[in-house]
């Protein structure tokens, strides 16, 4: 069985962010980049399945050459090969275009099962994997906290507000992964060395039968800004009972929130 795992290289959100003077881009020179945290769980789940049942795990990403850094990490964790969609037209895509490109990439692999993080923590777009599923007419489930494979059927738990669903999906299927599902392994040094020799194929949009024109974005970025912090920053003085009573008074009388 072939398993595709969709992963993305993103800035570590613990970084300090600055907006460029054009107000349309983030200054990237001081950012540290990592694999999106949910994607690490997706890679781990695929490798666990490979260890239990045998499978070829292909990590798939879209982006510039630097995306290979996190693909190598996934290969060092135990994935077998990589496929990077890159080149002209890939840098300006919206989630809609990214999904069309990744769907074509997944199709070219012939994957029966696709894992992805529930969202990437840069743009938090929260839609690419679901779009890939719909474009490929695969069954899908999102925000999955437990995954089992019984023959050709996936049994998953997915969280909803105030509860959870247990779902059975026939393969082929796309599953997006939530954090609590597993603990991603750290690559060992020998595996990091081995990963350097594993293949990462590259495909352009044209290789996948797509064109940048057909995937032209329908979203205009008007501006980026840093969040305003209009907080009161009012530190309440006094002994503990006085502070507690003052807090209640403020919440009740000033804010009318209690």
């Amino acid at each position, binding site marked *: 069985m072939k398993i595709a795992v969709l992963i993305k290289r993103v800035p570590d*959100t613990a970084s300090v962010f600055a907006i460029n003077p054009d107000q349309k881009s983030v200054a990237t020179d001081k950012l540290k980049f990592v694999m999106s945290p949910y994607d690490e769980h997706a890679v781990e789940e695929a490798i666990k399945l490979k260890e239990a049942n045998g499978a070829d795990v292909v990590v798939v990403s879209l982006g510039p050459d630097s995306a290979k850094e996190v693909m190598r990490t996934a290969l060092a964790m135990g994935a077998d090969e990589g496929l990077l969609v890159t080149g002209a037209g890939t840098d300006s895509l919206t989630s809609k275009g990214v999904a069309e490109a990744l769907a074509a990439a997944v199709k070219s692999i012939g994957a029966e099962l696709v894992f992805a993080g529930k969202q990437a923590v840069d743009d938090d777009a929260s839609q690419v994997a*679901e779009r890939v599923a719909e474009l490929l007419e695969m069954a899908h489930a999102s925000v999955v906290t437990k995954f089992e494979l019984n023959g050709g059927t996936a*049994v998953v738990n997915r969280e909803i507000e105030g509860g*959870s669903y*247990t779902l059975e999906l026939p393969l082929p299927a796309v599953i997006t992964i939530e954090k609590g599902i597993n603990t991603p392994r750290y690559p060992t040094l020998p595996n990091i060395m081995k990963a350097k020799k594993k293949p990462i194929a590259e495909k352009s949009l044209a290789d996948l039968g797509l064109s940048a024109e057909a995937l032209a974005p329908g979203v205009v970025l008007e501006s980026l800004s840093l969040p305003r912090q209009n907080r009161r920053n009012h530190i309440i003085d006094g002994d503990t009972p006085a502070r507690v009573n003052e807090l*209640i008074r403020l919440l009740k009388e000033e804010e009318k*929130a*209690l």
Partner: protein
Amino acid sequence: MSVLVLLEQRGELKPCALEAATIAGQIAKASGMALNACYIGQSLSDQAESLKGFGIEKVYAYENASLSHYSNDGYVPIVRDLVNELGAKVIIGSSSALGKEFCASVAARLGAELVQDAIGLGWDGGLKATKPLYAGKVISETKITTFPAMASVRPNVISIERNGDGAPELVKRDMPQVSLRTVLKEAAQATAGTIELTEAKVVVSGGRGIGGPENWPVIEDLAKALGAAAGASRAVVDAGWVHHSHQVGQTGKVVSPDIYVACGISGAIQHQAGMRTSKIIVAINKDPEANIFKICDYGIVGDLFEVCPLLAAEVRKVRAS
């Protein structure tokens, strides 16, 4: 040309459905388009009352027991066909756990652009959306210029506002025959009496400062006094003191309550990502240098084991009076 709002239900219409209806009504007004609503579920029946005052002209109700729970295979084709039938130009949903999956799937079927988790929406010849990026450290303003355009709205951010008591016309629809590939085996409810974090009006969260799982009841008791949901920082979840479903933050849940009370939480960036859009932030921490005080409205520098029980007792007195 019209705006369509997707009404999320879990047996009953959810508050986020009425929040979406509120903002969809504002977009309809600003753009001069009509507003319609789509309900899929067991039965809308007398809940139609709660849809008064949003300016909804028609609510299309697809009522069927087999679709009381969300299903991609069941719900998505219905909306795709309704959008095409109505020629809807703008589609608004909710950015809940299920709502995000629903909206992403509908957008794919329609070939539509979609902004998820919007904290503000508007109209200017296209659908304008305000959305946090990079764990809330950057705010983006975008405009979708192709149609249909879609957005889902972060729960608890929009205040539900009704204007008058105009009731929508109820249009009952027959259920199309669909074969569901995905089978729902079990729908488990969380323990009775617990309030869902992302929907709570008040959230009380505990961090590393609680010291150990044996002290978690301090947080739970304050939450109970305030009628709040109990949340936790990543440190507390990673240490195994409470279940991941309590985690507020970048790799946990995003909450926007009226009051967020952070107890013994340092205020790491990844935590802020999950609570930055709270309306009032209260911080209780013994370290006056903690980052949480930089982003709070009201702060108490002190031992949470003294402050929280006293606060719980005083809140109960106020509530009782």
